[in-house]
Every structure is written in structure tokens, then in C-alpha cells.
């Protein structure tokens, strides 16, 4: 750790005065001085790698709720992974992984993977485009933003970009996306923080030679080739990227025929090569599995199984390689997909667009080997419209990574995320830049923090919830994930309270109540019968 990093990270928690170069360290707690000393940007060498699973990943066949297996078998008998094939996870018998994911299984069991259950947002969109836009912009469901959440983050850290960049302090691209266009997630307040004159995509193209050939024997080919030559020269970042990439040798072997692994290999190379770039985005498509997501004769095989295999193998190879290259402690990654898929499978051996789904957060410094949240409760009878309930807002995951891993100040966090989201911890407290005592949500597993009576009910029910004090929220959702109402949303003293829920006018069916309090959340399934 560089000295400046040390000062930056250590200063807020040092209570007693101490001397450092003659200055009282406590004085560094006053932020203007500290900011001046460490420049305006949060000085961290931490890197975030986002892995986008395009198409909507079937979370129920990826992180399998074994304690719901019977009801799940009713709902998706033609695709469900046989329970004896599900990969087990240390410390739990209730949850397991898709049989293809041996890589992630071993990482989880070694404490390098954290699973976040039921990630979505209120009133989710079932459209690929709209849902992708929501995930990349981190907007509300009914809000349209022109900036991306990573772009807003980078815009806060590097407010004048691209003017004055690259420079001595930040000689490298702010964000790099491998293998595709620059995601709207990188769109900053004025320009894309991932692009400017340097298109990371063209780097990928140069590396991989994906470009139509210019026929030099023709006048058009001669001129095209000329412009391309200049374009390469003007890639302000090209030489630093190339130098970084070329300086790295001795990478481990990555799985063959795995597009995601190809991309992550470049990311590892660039991190090791010394780029100060903080955010990388890689992506893999094919998750839109409306039909034939499994092999008809062996449900552990097929299209989705191949995707699970590629994802798991790629992350494992990448993590091992980062470790091997000596940069493992600097990297945290996460997966995301625009939505999960429906609980009930369809007749063609696939699943339709759904809402909440689990995601993985991985890396040496992740508070891993644990699951945040609970298995979704699957009803005995599941209709085609029923969805996995939301437990965590995806923006809580972003927000937590920004504050705990990228050391974004609380005041900036609100600017970037546009409101205050639940802190999920996620990072080991020893590595976190927010040294808070993290209460683990799963420590509360088995304790009912929220219940209702009667249940099922006809027109109203009383919801009982327990809070540890502080901000407490109770929301009611339907099975499409639409937020019906926010029953409770204020500060409480620690204790147990009740709230009355009037369901007059609501259609019969399954609903759920979600409690959020500090690091804790719990979901209670409820039914209206008439």
C-alpha cells in the first residue's frame, strides 16, 4: 500500500492523536486538508470488474434453493436440475450451485465468493432494453436517465474529463470495456467516461483483428487504411494499454472456447500491467433462454449449462490468474443480468422473462463463503406470472461496492446513486474503506424478523416486524415485483412493532412483505384469498 493510500484509509479511524511526519494524524480527519494531501480523487488501487450476462439469467437454475425443491419441481419439472447433481456449498444444505459451476463452488468454499439473493428493484421491467437501461443507469423503474452509474462515479472522481486527460496522475483510461461497445453504464454527465478518443473496443479489435480489411489495391482501401493508421496513432491511450498488456507474461491458462475467459484474460493482463483504470466491464450473451435451456434427456446439460460453465470457469481462471500475477487483493468482481427468469418453466423447456435473481460478488477481499439474503420461498402452486421476490435492490450492491471498495465518500455516494441505498457490507472489514462493524444478515437466518397474521387473509392482515433501531422500511410487492405500497419508512427505536395492511381492492394471489433495516432484510410471503 502506498503511503498516501495508507493515510487516506487510516485517517478516519484513528481516534488518538499520533505523529506522522510531524503532523497530528487526527488533524487529517478534517477532510479539506486530507483531500488536499491526497488529491481530489479517492486514492485507491482497487479495481471493479463487472460481468454482464445479457439476456436475463435463470437464477433459479444457477443458485438452487434446495429447501424449496419440492415446490420448485412442481413449477419447473422439465428443466430443474436433479437435486443430487446440485453442487453443495460449505456451511449450508439449503442452497447449492448449478452442476457446471465447480469453479465457483471451490471459490465459494474458499471464501472468495459471496452470493446476494433476490436482486432486483421495485416494479421491474420485463423488457430487455428497458431493464438493461435501468441496470446500467441505476435509475428507478419509472425514471429515464441519460447517465450511467459508473459514468457518474467516474465523473465525480474526474470531473473535468476528457479535458486534461490523460495526465501524470491518471495516465490511463478511466474505464475499459472489453469486447463490445462502450456501455451506457459509463456515460458520464457530459461524455462517456469509457471512450473519449480511446475506444477500448478498438483495442480489443486490434488485439483480435476484428475489422473489415481495407483493400490496398483500391483507392478507397488506400484512403481507409490511411485514416485507420492515424486513428491508431491518435488513440491517446493505445500505447499505454499496449505497453501494459505487453509487459505481462506468465499468465495462467484460461479455458479455451470461452469468450468471457478471453475478455477476462485481457482484464487481468491490464491490471497486472499497471493501468490505474478502476472499472472494467466484460459481457457474455445468450441468457435469453425462452426454449430448450436444458438438454431434454439430461437437465444438467444444454444451453444454460454451457453458459454456467463458461461463467464459472472464466471467473475461476481469472481469479486464479490475478492471484498468480500478484494482483488478487486489488480486484473485486460482480455479475449482473438485466433480470432473472420466471419461476414456472414453459412447455418448450425454457423460461420467460422474470425479475429478481441472485448475483455473485467475488475476489480475495470479498466477505465470501456466505450468502446475503434467503432462498426465495416457492409457493406450492405457482402461476405463470409469479416471480422471485426482490430482497435487495441492485443499487444497494453498486452503492456498497462504491463505498466499501472504491472508497467513495458518503456525500458523493448520494450524488452518484441519486438516493440512499442499503449498505450490504460485501467486503471484508479489514479491506473495506468504510470500517464499519458489519452485521451479517445471515446471522439472522432462522429468526423471523417479519411475519403477518392472519395468513392467508381476505381483506387485511397485521404485519409484525422487529427492528434493531434506526431506519426501517416495510414494502409490499406483488408477484410481478410491483411495489404496492411502502407501509413503513422511518426511524425506530429497537423493538418489535406492528403495521396494518389493508388489501382492499387487490386481486387474490401471492404477495410479499419486505423488511429492510440496516444490513438486514427479510421477505415474508402472504396470500390473499377470497
Amino acid at each position, binding site marked *: 500500500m502506498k503511503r498516501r493510500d495508507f493515510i487516506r484509509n487510516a485517517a478516519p479511524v484513528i481516534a488518538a492523536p499520533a505523529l506522522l511526519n510531524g503532523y497530528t494524524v487526527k488533524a487529517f480527519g478534517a477532510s479539506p486538508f486530507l483531500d488536499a494531501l491526497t488529491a481530489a480523487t479517492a486514492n485507491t488501487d482497487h479495481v471493479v470488474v463487472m460481468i454482464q450476462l445479457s439476456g436475463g439469467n435463470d437464477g433459479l437454475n444457477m443458485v438452487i434453493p434446495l429447501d424449496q425443491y419440492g415446490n420448485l419441481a412442481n413449477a419447473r419439472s422439465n428443466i430443474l436440475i436433479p437435486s443430487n447433481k446440485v453442487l453443495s456449498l460449505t456451511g449450508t444444505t439449503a442452497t447449492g450451485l448449478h452442476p457446471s459451476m465447480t469453479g465457483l463452488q471451490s471459490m465459494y468454499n474458499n471464501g472468495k465468493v459471496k452470493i446476494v439473493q433476490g436482486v432486483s428493484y421495485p416494479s421491474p421491467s420485463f423488457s430487455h432494453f428497458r431493464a438493461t437501461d435501468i441496470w446500467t443507469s441505476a435509475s428507478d423503474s419509472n425514471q429515464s436517465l441519460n447517465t450511467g452509474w459508473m459514468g457518474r462515479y467516474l465523473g465525480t472522481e474526474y470531473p473535468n474529463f476528457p479535458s486534461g486527460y490523460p495526465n501524470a496522475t491518471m495516465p490511463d483510461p478511466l474505464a475499459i470495456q472489453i469486447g*463490445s461497445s462502450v456501455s451506457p453504464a459509463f456515460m458520464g454527465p457530459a461524455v462517456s467516461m469509457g471512450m473519449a478518443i480511446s475506444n477500448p473496443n478498438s483495442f480489443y479489435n486490434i488485439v483480435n483483428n*476484428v475489422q*473489415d480489411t481495407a483493400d490496398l489495391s*483500391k*483507392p*478507397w*482501401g488506400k*484512403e*481507409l487504411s490511411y485514416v485507420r493508421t492515424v486513428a491508431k496513432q491518435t488513440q491517446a491511450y493505445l500505447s499505454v494499454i499496449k505497453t501494459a498488456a505487453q509487459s505481462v507474461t506468465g499468465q495462467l491458462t484460461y479455458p479455451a472456447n470461452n469468450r468471457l475467459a478471453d475478455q477476462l484474460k485481457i482484464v487481468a493482463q491490464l491490471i497486472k500491467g499497471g493501468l490505474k483504470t478502476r472499472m472494467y466491464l466484460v459481457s457474455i450473451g445468450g441468457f435469453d433462454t425462452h426454449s430448450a435451456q436444458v438438454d431434454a434427456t439430461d437437465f444438467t446439460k444444454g444451453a444454460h449449462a454451457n453458459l454456467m460453465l463458461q461463467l464459472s470457469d472464466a471467473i475461476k481462471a481469472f481469479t486464479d490468474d490475478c492471484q498468480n500475477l500478484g494482483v488478487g487483493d486489488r480486484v473485486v468482481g460482480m455479475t449482473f443480468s438485466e433480470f432473472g427468469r420466471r419461476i414456472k418453466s414453459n412447455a418448450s423447456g425454457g423460461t420467460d422473462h422474470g425479475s429478481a435473481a441472485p448475483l455473485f460478488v467475488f475476489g480475495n477481499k470479498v466477505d465470501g463463503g456466505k450468502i446475503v439474503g434467503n432462498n426465495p420461498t416457492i409457493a406450492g402452486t405457482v402461476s405463470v406470472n409469479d416471480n422471485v421476490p426482490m430482497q435487495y435492490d441492485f443499487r444497494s450492491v453498486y452503492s456498497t461496492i462504491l463505498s466499501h471498495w472504491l472508497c467513495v465518500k458518503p456525500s458523493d455516494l448520494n450524488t452518484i446513486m441519486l438516493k440512499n441505498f442499503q449498505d450490504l457490507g460485501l467486503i471484508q472489514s479489514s479491506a473495506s474503506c468504510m470500517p464499519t462493524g458489519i452485521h451479517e444478515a445471515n446471522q439472522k437466518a432462522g429468526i423471523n424478523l417479519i411475519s403477518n397474521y392472519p395468513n392467508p387473509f381476505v381483506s387485511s392482515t397485521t404485519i409484525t416486524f422487529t427492528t434493531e433501531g434506526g431506519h426501517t422500511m416495510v414494502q409490499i410487492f406483488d408477484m410481478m415485483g410491483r411495489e404496492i405500497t411502502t407501509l413503513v419508512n422511518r426511524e425506530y427505536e429497537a423493538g418489535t412493532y406492528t403495521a396494518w395492511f389493508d388489501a382492499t381492492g387487490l386481486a387474490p394471489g401471492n404477495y410479499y412483505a419486505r423488511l429492510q433495516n440496516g444490513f438486514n432484510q427479510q421477505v415474508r410471503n402472504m396470500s390473499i384469498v377470497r
Partner: protein
Amino acid sequence: MDRKSFLTAQAAQAKPNGIKQLNKTARTNSTITPYAGVWGETQIIQLLKRATFGAKISDIAYFKTKTMSQCVDELVTPLAAPSPPVNNYEGKTFNGNPFVDPDGIAKGATWVNAPYNNDANGFRENSMKSWWVSLMLNQGRSVTEKMVLFWHNHFSTEINSYNDVRYNFKYLATIRQYALGDFKAFVKAISLDPMMLRYLNGFVNTKNAPDENYGRELQELFVCGKGPNSQYTEDDVKAAAKVLTGININNTTVTYNFISANHDTANKTFSPFYNNTVITGQTGAAGINELDSLILMLFAGKSNGQALPEAAYFISRKLYRWFVYYDIDATTETNIIAPMAQAFYSANWDITAPLKLLLKSEHFYDILNFGCQIKSPVDYTIGALREFNTVIQNADIAVNYDTWYTVYALMVAFQQAIGDPPNVAGWPAYYQAPQYNEIWVNTDTLPKRSQVMDTLVTNNYGLIPAFDVIAFADALSNPADPNAMVSDTLKYLLRIDISQVNRDYIKTTYLLTGQTNDIYWTQAWNLFNVDRTNTINKNVVKSRLQQMIKYIIDLAEYQIA
């Protein structure tokens, strides 16, 4: 050496040198014969991208209903003079106060007939530059603006060199008037143009102190050129200068003024290139008539063995480089330049004759001549604003002018300041072998170009409104079909074919956000169409179109027309 001669000396080393040696790039054997093939969008786009700034989709549709010959005839028809620039500066801050036109010219009224005023001059210059941009943006279906720029590059003067906007405006009016007219009459007019007389010292060329500047450029840059067959001599330069002695400027009327006392009345003898012509010295007011004799002689100058006067070849080559490609090999010289020169000569130097012949030729529509011009800054900037139908229409005319000025400033940043070419030879990109128009694109200008266009796809650039990508998509054949969307967009924006693999890449990555099923785009477009006031549904398609267009205009292919 004064500044002008210094510039001229510099330019002399880099002036056009006629026929370029064959390089490794294959040229073509196609001829000047009228094109008789398919008259489709590809051909119309070729015509419009070269004859106007950018090919507007509406213009392409319009010309589809006509024959090739009708299209060219319509494009090459001379237009009436446009309304002049106006007072857009009334009330702007000047020395801390709101500026009031010193001649009482109201806002919106033209200043072009006003006397010189030191305070107003800068404002009026900017008004004129903005006005010129507006004419380019609103050029309509005419080759006029491209020819005005051609002649500005040919008969170059610099606004910077003499800050009196009356001169600058008259010069522009002259090149506009003759842009599609009689080249010989044009040469006479430009020889007497007050701005040109200032710029090349014609107004100080006297019997006792001849100044050869204009006499030289008249032959070297304006009429005969520097080709191997342009064999005028140093003595011809001196003799021409003597013919032109005595011409002066009336600074009140801003017209030429002949002072016979300053005219050299001796006979002027020229070289064999001009058939040993002797221009008889004239006395008194008749001295100015020697100019007519001089022009007659210049337009007859030719080398032994050449069929036609050199001027016919010289201007034809320059037109060819402007409209087709910079590389003129021996085949092109025979097949294209020679017949153009013949047409020019036979039509008594009517410039539209060789121009029409070229634009109608099978050579012009030869696929090997597609996509081989690197866009000039003007082509790049004006072309993009026209192709994306940028509308600059504000209630306050001053805002329009300011917006046009923003466009002007962009072209300056891209290294083409209209009104101020680098020197008398024009912009090097039009004559400097071996790079020619490749000079426009370098490590400084290419990122600037891309950044501006990148911004305009999503945001306003200063006063320039962002591209309306929805309107762009609406004009395409089938916006609901992502395949048609990609191929139409590529067809209208690029001149170089994109492989199916990359078309699929663009479709999948941008329109389908990584999905493989086309229906997702179709659904999104149709949903947007159900209720166009729904912002969220609109942004779903809009943001995807923007990303696709950003990608396409960021390709090297977009730099080429």
C-alpha cells in the same frame, strides 16, 4: 520580401505539378462515355456526396424519380444570388456597452452597402462568415456551394490579410456570380476584383515599380498551372505584370480604378508558349483594354504537340481532383481529362460543360471511384449537419448567426477556415502531392472530429442542436426491422461496404443490446410508435439508435466520402 511574396515563395515549392506518377493503387480504365448503368441509390449518393456537402436522404429520394442526366443538369443549374448577410450584431457587447450600428442599419437589415467602419468591421466579418455557413447548410439541390468553395480555393484570398469587409464581401460575390459561368469572364472579373488587387499587390503595380505578384499567379495558379506542359517563362511573368500596370482601387466605391499615368504603354512580347504574342501598348484610358488581350492570350497558351490550350487541361484536372480523386494517371489523363478539356474549350470556357461531362460519365460512377475522398472539414461538418437534418431556426436571427458561427469555428478547429485559406495556392489538401486530401486527417484533427460528432449524437454542441436520431430513423425504409435499420444507416452514412459479420455485430451490440432475436428491437420500436409521447419508451429506442450511430460515425469509414 514582403509577407505576401514570402507566402507565395513557400507555395511555389508546393504547387500542383500536373500529372502524378502512377502509384501502386489500381486506377480504372472507365471512360468519359455517359453512364448508362443502373440509376440507384448508390449512384445518387455518389453524385450527392461529391457535388453537394453530404447526401441528404430527402435529396436522394427526390433524385430517384429522375434520370442521371436530369439529376446532373438540375444540380449544375446556376442559382440567383442569395440575400446578403445582415446586422446580427446589434446590441452585442462592445467595449462594455451594447453595440449600435454606426450607420443606423437595423438588426436584420444588410450592412453590405455600408461604408467601412473600424468598430463594426469585426462584427460584419463574423456576420459574413456565419452567412456563408448558412448558405452551405441550406444549399439545396445544387452544386453551387461546392463550386464556390472550389473557386475560393482556386482564386484564394484571405480575409485576415485585409480587414475591410466590403472587399471580402465583393470578392465572395464575384466568385459566387461566376461559380457556374464563363471561366474567361471570371478571370477578367477576378483580375479586377478589389480584394484580389489588394491580396496580390495588383493595386501597387505601376510602370515605374512593377509588381509581378499577380502577373505570376495569374499564369501559375489561376489559368495555366504548373504542369509539365505549362511552359510560360519568367519573361512572360514580367510582361504580364507590365500589361496590368496602372490598375488601382477606388477605396470609396471599392471598385477597380485605372490610372493611365501608371500604365506601361510599351509593347509586351511573350514567349513561344503564347505563340510569341505581342500585346500592343495602349495609351490613356484604353490601357486597361490590354487586359482583354492578355486574357485572350493566356487562354490560348499551349505547348507543342498539345491539342488544346493548357488552361483547358489545368482546370479540368483541378475539377477532377475536386470531384473524383487526386490520383491522375496516364489513363485518366487520356480517358477523362482530355475530353473534359475539349468540352471546356468547345463551350467557350463555360465551366458547366466539363463539369457536366464528368458528373455524367461512366468513370464518375465507376465503383473504383467510390469512397476514395477523405472528407474535408467543410464536407465533414456541413455534410453531417445536413445528413442528420440539423435545423437552425430561431426566432432571434442573432441566435441563428451565432449558431452558424459555431459551425464555422468547428471547421476552423478542423483546419479549414473558410475565407482564410493558408496562402494563395489554397489548402494543401487540394494540391500537395503525394498526400492530397489525406492531409486533412492527422493526430490532431481526427480526435477533434470524432469528439464533436460524438457529442452531437447525444447532446447540443454549443448552440448546434443535437442530432434528431428518431427523425433520422423515421426516414429509413423500415425502422422496425433492425437489419434494415443497420443497412440503411450504413448505406446513407458510409461509402465503404461493411461486411455481414460487422453488420450483425452492429445490430446485435447496439440495436439488440446483445440479444440475438430481432423481435426485441421490433417490439421496442413498435411500442415507441404506439405513443410517441412516452418518454421511457422513446428513450429505449433513442439511446440504442444513438449508440449505433456513434459507433458508425466513429469508424474510419465515416471520414471518407
